[in-house]
């Protein structure tokens, strides 16, 4: 598939810093944790280049983007350069005044707050004392100002048994239209805190079953691009395909899971251009020194990641003889790198055969004891 001539959207990790230090944070201790924040002028200059490249949206993240004192000026730079923005935030630093400002721009696509529990216990276990109350207050400010608030629930050992209560809080008490889910993945700080944070096989299976039921109960108001809900749907589709005699699924049989490198890229807080926030170790150039269009179109590392989509799964020893090849897309390259040390291989995290061989069962088999 041909990439676009320039990225359509760019993720800007505008700061390395954060007021929290969550035990599964994918930023701290990863390649994006560079210790340097670019000055405002550099971001503003880069936004002019984004405008020249006709980039439509940026995603402002970090660290915690609101930790920057000049966050407002950064948003003004986005608006001045004809773009829209979304924000990924822990929600704890948001004030009514800032929400007023964000609303007044008319350019906010979404403002995502992380909420991990129905109350302080499960949320603060990984995110630190008082962070639940502050995040919930931030979320309520967004709603009060009619900003497009979204919530991401990251599932880990401390909240996996409370998914019912979390859904009730967010969809019934707070009244959000929907929320998305993920699970703590083997990246950043999670690599050090794996035992305390990451779901084991039984917990992962339990989360899959529970989330499927909840997504059904709340009529699709719970979504996922990664983690247990997304994975269970993907694997159930594989089983369904085999059962229904479908020989293969479009786009499957090769490493096609990630389309990110065809339409978007990211920038670390120190100005290093990278293919994706989750692949901060692949350094493509430096903003305001290297030409964005040139990097996007010709950097050999981006070409290598794009060529991934043409690599058949059957060429991997790992996949030899697997009956799921015609329905498999190989998973996220960033996770593959974190687990295997290279990107252009299937990610063991998304491998149904590995899951089954380790005793994992899909929900209909009733593994969840909660």
């Amino acid at each position, binding site marked *: 598939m041909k990439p*676009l001539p*320039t990225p359509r959207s760019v993720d800007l990790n505008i700061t390395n810093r954060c007021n929290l230090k969550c035990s599964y944070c994918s930023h701290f201790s990863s390649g994006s944790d560079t210790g340097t924040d670019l000055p405002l002028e550099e971001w503003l200059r880069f936004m002019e280049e984004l405008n020249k490249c*006709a980039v439509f949206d940026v995603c402002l993240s970090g660290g915690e983007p609101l930790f920057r004192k000049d966050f407002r000026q950064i948003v003004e730079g986005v608006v001045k350069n004809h773009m*829209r923005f979304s924000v990924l935030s822990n929600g704890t630093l948001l004030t009514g005044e800032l929400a007023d400002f964000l609303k007044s721009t008319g*350019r906010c696509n979404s403002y995502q707050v992380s909420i991990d529990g129905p109350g302080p216990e499960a949320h603060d276990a990984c995110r630190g004392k008082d962070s639940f109350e502050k995040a919930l207050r931030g979320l309520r400010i967004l709603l009060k100002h009619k900003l497009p608030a979204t919530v991401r629930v990251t599932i880990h050992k401390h909240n996996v048994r409370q998914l019912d209560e979390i859904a009730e809080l967010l969809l019934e008490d707070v009244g959000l239209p929907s929320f998305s889910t993920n699970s703590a993945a083997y990246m950043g700080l999670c690599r050090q805190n794996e035992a305390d944070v990451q779901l084991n096989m039984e917990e992962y299976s339990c989360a899959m079953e529970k989330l499927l039921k909840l997504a059904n109960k709340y009529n699709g108001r719970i979504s996922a691009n990664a983690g247990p809900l997304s994975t269970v749907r993907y694997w159930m589709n594989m089983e369904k395909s085999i059962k229904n005699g479908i020989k293969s699924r479009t786009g499957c049989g090769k490493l096609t899971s990630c389309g990110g490198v065809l339409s978007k890229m990211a920038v670390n807080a120190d100005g290093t251009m990278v293919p994706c926030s989750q692949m901060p170790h692949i350094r493509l150039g430096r903003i305001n020194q290297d030409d964005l269009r040139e990097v996007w179109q010709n950097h050999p590392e981006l070409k290598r990641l794009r060529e991934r989509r043409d690599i058949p799964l059957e060429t991997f020893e790992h996949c030899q003889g697997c009956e799921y090849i015609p329905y498999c897309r190989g998973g996220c390259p960033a996770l593959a790198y974190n687990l295997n040390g290279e990107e252009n291989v299937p990610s063991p995290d998304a491998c149904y055969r590995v899951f089954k061989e380790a005793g994992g069962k899909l929900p209909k088999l009733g593994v969840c004891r909660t």
Partner: protein
Amino acid sequence: MKKIPFANPEIVYREDFDDWAVLFDPDTAETYGLDETGSFIWKQINGKNSVADILQAMPAEFENISDDAGSQIEKFLGEMEEKGLIGYRK
């Protein structure tokens, strides 16, 4: 009197694939696809060219201009005006 179209300065013009382009309105988040002819017309809208000027520039770019090309351009510009993508100087 000549009608001179001008582009809404907020609109972003983006060429994605051969001969196809997209107009993006950052205030509404709406996108509008343009084919080769639409792209050509958009590039002619500079606040100076009139509709007649745009029509006159077309044969250098396209073969087989139809007899009603003028009214087609007017119609296309009318739609763009409705969507807030352009305005007119008189």
